[in-house]
């Protein structure tokens, strides 16, 4: 057992006791002075980080919900805008058609009236011309033939002349 008394394998009871004493004293000192505050601070920090992560998750979910809402609103607005535009286009088309139609109609009316007026004026002018011609020819005939003719013959002559004129016309 010499190897236990001297050399590498020597087990000195005094050193063993010193080890235990030193270690226990160190445990007590560090417990009060170092480990307690360190472990508490690290725990508190871990707790805080966990809380922060939870909060962030909650905020993320909220904002995603909000985003979906906004997207929905935006989509609705888009479709409304498209509706309004197409409505506007249809209205404009209708308006344009009605205006054009009215214009056409008016133009036609004006033209008809003008035609009618022209016809009327022409008829009037013709009848006036007829009367004038009758008068003139009567006067001319009266002057030329003078009193040779009876009024009845004169009249039948005039009418003959008038028919001729009308056929010519």
């Amino acid at each position, binding site marked *: 057992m010499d190897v236990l008394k001297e050399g590498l394998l020597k087990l000195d009871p005094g*050193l*063993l006791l*010193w080890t235990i004493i*030193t270690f226990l004293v160190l*445990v007590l000192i*560090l417990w009060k002075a*170092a*480990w307690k505050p*360190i472990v508490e601070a690290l725990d508190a*920090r871990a707790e805080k980080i966990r809380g922060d992560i939870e909060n962030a998750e909650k905020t993320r979910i909220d904002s995603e919900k909000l985003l979906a809402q906004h997207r929905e609103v935006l989509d609705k607005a888009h479709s409304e805008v498209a509706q309004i535009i197409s409505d506007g286009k249809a209205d404009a088309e209708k308006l344009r058609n009605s205006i054009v139609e009215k214009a056409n109609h008016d133009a036609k009316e004006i033209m008809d009236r003008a035609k009618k007026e022209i016809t009327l004026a022409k008829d009037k002018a013709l009848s006036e011309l007829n009367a004038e011609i009758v008068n003139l020819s009567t006067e001319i005939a009266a002057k030329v033939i003078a009193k040779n003719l009876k009024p009845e013959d004169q009249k039948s002559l005039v009418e003959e002349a008038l028919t001729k004129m009308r056929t010519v016309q």
Partner: protein
Amino acid sequence: MIHVLHQVSSFFTSGGGHGEEAKPISAIVNHHLTDSVFTTSAASHLDKSDYIGRIFMNVFSGINETVLNQKLFGIFDMRITRWVLMMWMAAFLCMLVFIPVARKIKNAKMGSRSKWVNLWEVLISFVHDEVVEPNFDHHYVKKAMPYFLTLFFFILFCNFLGMIPGMSTATGNLAVTGGLAILTLLGMLGVGMIKQGPFSYWAGLVPHGVPAFVIPLMFPIEIIGLLIKPFALTVRLFANMTAGHVVIIIFLYLACGMFKSFAVGVGSVVGSLMIYMLELLVAFIQAYIFAVLSAMFIGSSMHAH
């Protein structure tokens, strides 16, 4: 050149001692890897220019020879040794690091920007996530944290202090690792007896459903199993921390004590450097393993299984 290397290596491994020629390798290993009590005669051997070392040595040897010269209860030789001093340095370093870091972490609500603080925070979170949390119920984690944080960082600092030339690895000693393992054992027994009740804890050591006649056989086996756990912790940490040092010393001895040739010197220094790198890794891994196994043992003694 070899002479310089020898001087450097003997300083390296002995903490500035003067290397005598023709010592057997076992004596060198013993010299560097075993404990030594501070005595006035050892203090007088120190170099005259090493004022701080001499003051320390004289103070400790003074205390040893006046206050602590009696054995406590006849067995405990409480004289301050190199290894005790190394433990105290590790403990002091722990306080030096973690008390200011604690204040900074407490004050910085959003997390400190300092790389120094964040480094330790990462290690603390590592202990929390890898050591304590998998082995303890949720509401005991906070209560268990201080013990395992101290255990991890104390072993880590002891291991790394031992990597500095001139220092010694306190955890490369059976008494030190044994002391820590005894605390783990006491933790297992204490937690088990408090959480399960003193009687049911011992009864729970034997698995349920075994035939009655096997119980007298099982009980001693389970007791041995209980004791083997801290014993394995003791030996694992001790052996891991010692083995690397032994290999480094042997590598340097090859060059300085055995062959005394330049070529061997280059090879052995490269070899010892590689072992040194490996030891840096081992120092961290072993601190983690000791802490995580302690947590596993203590955590599993909370419930009957």
